[in-house]
């Protein structure tokens, strides 16, 4: 068979969003690949230039439908850096806990998505079932289930409701039991392992050169986690460790994410212990930002997210630049896909945790 280009997307079950992966195949073997993005471009960075600083928070929520909290959080961190606002201690803990809950929710959605990618619907429904619990926690915390609009410049919108901590502990206990179930279903299943082990290994050097961050980078054996290397909020006070695997293949990326979910549970438990029982949760930020720049980066579920704000002395940002982790990870996909089979495309791409909202912006 002659070589041919296949469009996987923009409307395709593999894409998890609106993008196009063009692959050149020779029979079943991929010889080249080319991701095409831009189908979901909304002009986000331009849009926010016409919004007041507090108005950008709900906009940042909409950057990623899977992990909206981390995006509004990183925006608030950048704006606080620009305005020089100090966040109260309790608000920091609430933010970090929400971050980790969001990370679990986002990873659960990734776990749900790789199920159909690999051809198994059971894991999809199991993961979505548990994600529901974390959505419920967020709902009782801030009233919304998907786009929370919860962090504020200088704190969070409201304190945790009564009984929230009790529900949280119960959910975490239940979730840890369920994690064992997932590992029974996936790790101890030889067909799952057959599909993932030794697939698309990415060496540490390649991963660094291509700018891959997050679980995909740690799956390649690079010890880099913004929470650890450049701690924000209270991460340096907590007792936790990075989840790293050396193999660099798809299974390693899978394992890193699964380990991170357990680690997030541990972080939330520790936060519950160390959190000040009462205190202010919010300080009032200035309405206008000074002339200058503010930058914040944090560990998104998909990698390192960064926001860079230039303030011009008015109540609107002059420029807001977003560094989206998956946008960079996507550029590594041709390297990973080459010489593998067409059937591996969903498992390789799905394991990177696709999110198009933040990629196209």
């Amino acid at each position, binding site marked *: *068979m002659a070589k*041919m280009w*296949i469009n*996987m997307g923009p409307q*395709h*079950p*593999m894409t998890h969003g609106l993008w196009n992966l063009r692959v050149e*195949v020779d029979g*079943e073997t991929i010889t080249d690949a080319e991701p095409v993005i831009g189908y979901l471009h909304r002009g986000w960075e331009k849009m926010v230039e016409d919004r007041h600083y507090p108005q950008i928070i709900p906009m940042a929520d909409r950057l990623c439908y899977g992990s909206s909290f981390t995006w509004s959080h990183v925006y608030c961190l950048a704006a606080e850096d620009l305005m020089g606002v100090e966040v109260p201690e309790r608000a920091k803990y609430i933010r970090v806990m929400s971050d980790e809950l969001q990370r679990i929710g986002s990873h659960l959605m990734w776990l749900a998505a790789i*199920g*159909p*990618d*690999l*051809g*198994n*619907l*059971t894991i999809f*429904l*199991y993961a979505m*079932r548990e994600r529901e619990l974390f959505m419920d926690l967020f709902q009782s915390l801030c009233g919304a289930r998907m786009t929370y609009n919860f962090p504020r410049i200088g704190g969070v919108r409201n304190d945790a409701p009564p009984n929230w901590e009790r529900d949280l502990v119960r959910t975490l206990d239940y979730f840890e039991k369920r994690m064992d179930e997932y590992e029974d*279903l996936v790790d101890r*299943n030889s*067909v*799952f392992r*057959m*599909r993932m082990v030794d697939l698309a290994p990415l060496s540490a050097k390649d991963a660094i050169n291509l700018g891959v961050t997050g679980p995909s980078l740690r799956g390649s054996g690079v010890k880099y986690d913004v929470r650890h290397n450049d701690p924000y909020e209270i991460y340096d006070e907590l007792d936790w460790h990075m989840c790293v695997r050396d193999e660099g293949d798809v299974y390693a990326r899978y394992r890193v994410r699964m380990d991170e979910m357990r680690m997030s549970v541990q972080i939330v438990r520790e936060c519950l212990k160390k959190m000040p029982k009462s205190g202010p949760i919010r300080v009032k930020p200035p309405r206008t930002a000074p002339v200058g720049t503010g930058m914040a980066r944090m560990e998104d579920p998909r990698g390192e997210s960064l926001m860079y704000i230039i303030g011009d002395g008015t109540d609107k940002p002059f420029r807001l630049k977003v560094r989206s982790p998956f946008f960079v990870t996507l550029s590594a996909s041709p390297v990973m896909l080459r010489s593998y*089979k*067409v*059937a*591996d*495309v*969903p498992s390789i791409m799905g394991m990177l945790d696709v999110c198009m909202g933040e990629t196209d912006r």
Partner: protein
Amino acid sequence: MYLDLWQLLAGLVHWLMVDIIGPIFGWLSFHGIEGWLTRPETLYFITVILVVLIVFVVGMLVSITLIWQERKMLGRFMDRRGTQTGPIGLFQNFADALKTLQKEIIVPANADKLIYNAAPVIIIGTSLFLMATIPYSEGFYASDSDLSLILTFAIFSIVPFGVLLGGWASNNKYTLIGGMRAAAQLISYEIPMLLSVVSVVILAGSLSLNDIVWYQQAHIWLFIPLIIGFIVFLIAMVAEVERIPFDLPEAEAELVEGWGTEYGGLRFGLIMMSEYARGFIGSALATLLFLGGWDGPFKGIVPDGLWFLAKVFIVFGIFIWMRAALPRVRTDQILAIGWKKLLPLAVVNIFIAILFKTAGWF
């Protein structure tokens, strides 16, 4: 205890034609028609048509029930309730059929029209034709040929041809890859499947499905001595009926709907139904060849056909369980499993069968 379909319908037709309709025509003095209607050849012809119709309808009803069983069982495996349309979800299939009926039939502009239209006919026709060779009980069958086993597998292996043609004629890259995969996969799994069947034939000494079941009734259910062959047969059958974990030809994650991407509306509905018909035939063959067919305890009280159907549902339940627990395997892996694992196992199984036969144990 069984229902002799042929005897019953022959008696029914004889009574209807010779005793009621024939005399009416005679009374109206149409003696030519009366003479023609009461001829034994005519009676036999009408009986054959009725038998075929009944066996076909029963086969289709069982296939539809298998779809329902899959929806409900898969739902339970996935911690949900499955379909709820109608009482315990029984109406879902009919609703689906009505929906596919209403859809417009679209033929791709650049498709090879003749072959594109012929491929579903080949697939659906051969799948439904298989109903004719399956006996449900000692007296409930459409045909009892001495070579019914050979006939069944001969028809069974036409489908990859239709899949390849349909995938190629659709003029779409996904369907082309899906069709090629189907051809590679089905051809490579035919061999271990047939080899595991050969061991059954060696022990039973017959190529007739009825004879094989009678042999098992007299001696032993063949999955006990031929457990390796049974497992090989089940795995190869999953690949033959294109179910997860071997549903590569229609791998929906990467190939949208595989070779069937361009088939919509009623064609899609019928192709999907014929897949379940093939699933029914596959479970029925596993039942007949290895699990003793309609043999079972309480033979005087429980009708034979019920034992047969119960075993079919159990075997199909194993298929559903596989679907709930396993992901899809890859193209090279599926061929490696077929040629490097199942084929040697099937050959070993034949040696075991020959050993038992020469030793005269079974």
